[in-house]
C-alpha cells in the first residue's frame, strides 16, 4: 500500500457572490447569490514511502486545499484519501501523531514565550519521550543553527529563525508524513537555502514521505525528483522533473564565448532566437533537435573559446506548463 493514496478527491466551496458597489451590498442584505467553486476536481495520485514530491500550480490551483484535506482540516465533497492507511478527516489521534503540516508563516509558537516553551508543549502534546525529545531537539537546533536562540522570546526572532523553529516544532515527533506548504515563503535567499538543505537532509536521513508546495522553483529543483502539477483543481501532470523538461521544453540554450568580437545579433539570428548578444558573449535559444547541428555550424564559422549547452530555466518551462494547462482547463 502506498503511503498517500488519493482517489477522485473533490472539494467544492460555496462562495457568496456580491455585485459591486453599495447597491450590491444592499441587495446582498436581502438576497444572496452563491456560486460553486471546484477548488479540487477529481484529483488522484499515489505517493510511496520516502518520496519527496513537489506539488505545483499557480495561485488558487487547489494545492493548499488538497494539503488541508490530506491533513484532515477539511472534509472533501467527494472522493477518498488514505494517508498511512488512515482517512485524514476522521482526525484520529493515532494518525495525527504520525504526520505534520507546516504552513509558511502560520505559527504554532507562542509569541510571548521563548521558543523552547512551545517546543516543550509540542513534546507533551505528541507524547515524545524525554530522551528522544532531547536527542531530536539537539540534532535539529544544531542542523538549523538556532541552538542559542532557544531561550529568546519568539516575538523577538526574525522571520527565518521563526520558520526554523516552526519546522523543529513540527518534526519533534518524527512524523512519517510531512506536508510542507510554502515552507520558504517570505524568506531571504540564505534562509531559503538553509531550509531547503535541511529538508533534503531530513528526507534522506529519515525516509519521511514529503509533499511540498512552493512557488520557488529553486525549492522544487533542489528537492524533488517527482512533481505533480495541478491547475483549476485538476491534475495536469504527474511525473519526473526531467520529464517536464522533455515534454514542455522544445528548446535548449547555447551559451557562447567568442575569441574575437564582431559577431552580430543578425549573424546569429539565422541559428535560433538570440537572447543575449554582447561583444564576446551570446546566448541562443535553439530547437532541441537542432542543437548539435547548430553548434557544429557555429564552431566552424567562428573561433569559439567556450560553448555551453543548457536546459531552458525551469521557471520558464513551468510557466509554459501553467499556460498550457489553462488552455486545457
Amino acid at each position, binding site marked *: 500500500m502506498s503511503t498517500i493514496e488519493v482517489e477522485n478527491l473533490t472539494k467544492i466551496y460555496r462562495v457568496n457572490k456580491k455585485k459591486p458597489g453599495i447597491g450590491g451590498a444592499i441587495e446582498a442584505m436581502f438576497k444572496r447569490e452563491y456560486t460553486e467553486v471546484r477548488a479540487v476536481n477529481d484529483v488522484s495520485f499515489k505517493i510511496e514511502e520516502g518520496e519527496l514530491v513537489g506539488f505545483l500550480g499557480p495561485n488558487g490551483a487547489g494545492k493548499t486545499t488538497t494539503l488541508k484535506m490530506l491533513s484532515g482540516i*477539511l472534509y472533501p465533497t467527494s472522493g477518498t484519501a488514505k494517508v498511512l492507511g488512515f482517512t485524514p478527516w476522521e*482526525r484520529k489521534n493515532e494518525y*495525527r501523531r504520525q504526520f505534520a503540516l507546516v504552513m509558511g508563516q*502560520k505559527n504554532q509558537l*507562542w509569541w510571548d*514565550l521563548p521558543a523552547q*516553551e512551545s517546543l516543550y*508543549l509540542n513534546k*507533551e*502534546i505528541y507524547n515524545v519521550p524525554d530522551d528522544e525529545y532531547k536527542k531530536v531537539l539537539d540534532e535539529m537546533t544544531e542542523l538549523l543553527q538556532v541552538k542559542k536562540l532557544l531561550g529568546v522570546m519568539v516575538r523577538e526572532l526574525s522571520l527565518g529563525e521563526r520558520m526554523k523553529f516552526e519546522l523543529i516544532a513540527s518534526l519533534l515527533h518524527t512524523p512519517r508524513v510531512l506536508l510542507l506548504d510554502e515552507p520558504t515563503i517570505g524568506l531571504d535567499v540564505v534562509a531559503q537555502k538553509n531550509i531547503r538543505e535541511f529538508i533534503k537532509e531530513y528526507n534522506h536521513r529519515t525516509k519521511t514521505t514529503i509533499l511540498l508546495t512552493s512557488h520557488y522553483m529553486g525549492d522544487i529543483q533542489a528537492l524533488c525528483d517527482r512533481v505533480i502539477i495541478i491547475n483549476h483543481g485538476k491534475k495536469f501532470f504527474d511525473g519526473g522533473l526531467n520529464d517536464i523538461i522533455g515534454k514542455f521544453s522544445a528548446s535548449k540554450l547555447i551559451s557562447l564565448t567568442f575569441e574575437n568580437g564582431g559577431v552580430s545579433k543578425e549573424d546569429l539570428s539565422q541559428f535560433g532566437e538570440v537572447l543575449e548578444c554582447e561583444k564576446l558573449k551570446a546566448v541562443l535559444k535553439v530547437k532541441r533537435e537542432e542543437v548539435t547541428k547548430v553548434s557544429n555550424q557555429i564552431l566552424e564559422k567562428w573561433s569559439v573559446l567556450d560553448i555551453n549547452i543548457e536546459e531552458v530555466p525551469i521557471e520558464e518551462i513551468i510557466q509554459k506548463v501553467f499556460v498550457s494547462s489553462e488552455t486545457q482547463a
Partner: protein
Amino acid sequence: MMEALLKGTSAWKYWVILSTRTQEDMAYRANYMVGALFRFLPLLTTIYLWYAVFNSPGYAGSGRMGKMTLPDIVSYYAIMFVARGFSSMPGMTRDISLDIKDGLLNRYLIRPISYFWYQTMYRLAHKLIFWLAALITFPPVFYLIREYLKHSPTVLEWVGFFISLIIAFWTGVLFSFLIGCLAFWFLEISTFLFVIMTMEFFLSGHLIPLNLMPSAIVHYVQWLPFAYEGYWPCMILIGKVQPDQMGTVLGIGFLWVGIFFVLVKLCWKWGTQRYSAVGG
C-alpha cells in the same frame, strides 16, 4: 506534584498547556500587576451606588428593596464578584470565532489535541492568575465591607456554594465555547456577541439581583443557565436558598451543564465538517 500525578496520562498535556499559558499571562508584569491591584474597583463602585440608593431621600426607608436589605445587596455583589471570577470567560468567544473565521483553527485540528480542552485550560490558567491576585487584593476589600456581611452560612450553604461555583465555571466555559462555534455558520458574529453578552450580564444577575424583578419573570429567568453564572452562588451563600431547595437548584444547574456538553459536542462535529479553513 502534578507531574507525579498526571504524567503518563492524557491529562498531562493539558496540564502543560495550563502551565505554559500561565507563564505567558505573567510575561507582561506591569499589565498583570495593574490588573491584579485594581480588579476590585468595580466592586467598590457598585457597592457605593447601592449604598447611595438605600440612603437616597426618595427611598421609602423600610430598609428593604423587595426581599433584599442593604447588607444582603452588599453581600450579594461581593459574592457575585467571586462567582463571576469563575464563570466569566473574557475573550473566549471572540478568540474561538476568530480562530474559525481566520483559519487559525487549522493548527489545532492537525495535532492530537482537543480544541475544547485546550481552550478550557487556556481560560483556567487565566482564572488561576486572577485568583492568585485576588488572594492579595480581596481580603482588604472584604474587611472594609465586613459590617455588611451579616449572614453566617451553614455547612450546607458552604458546600452548596462551592458546588455552584463548579457549575458556574462549566456554564461559562461551555456557553462561551458554544457561542464561539456559531462562527462556523455565520463567520462574523461580533454584533451577535454583543447582544448575547449583554443578555448574559443581565440574566446572570450581575447587573441587578434577579429577585428584584417582578416575580412572574423571576419564576422563569432564575432557571435559565445564566442564573448559574452568578445569581445562584450568591443566593446560596447569603442564605436565600432553603435547605430543601438546594438539591433542586444544584440539580438543574448540573442538567444545564450536561445539556451544554452535548450541544458543544454536536456543534463541534457539525461545525468542523463545514469548516472552510480559509486563509489558514
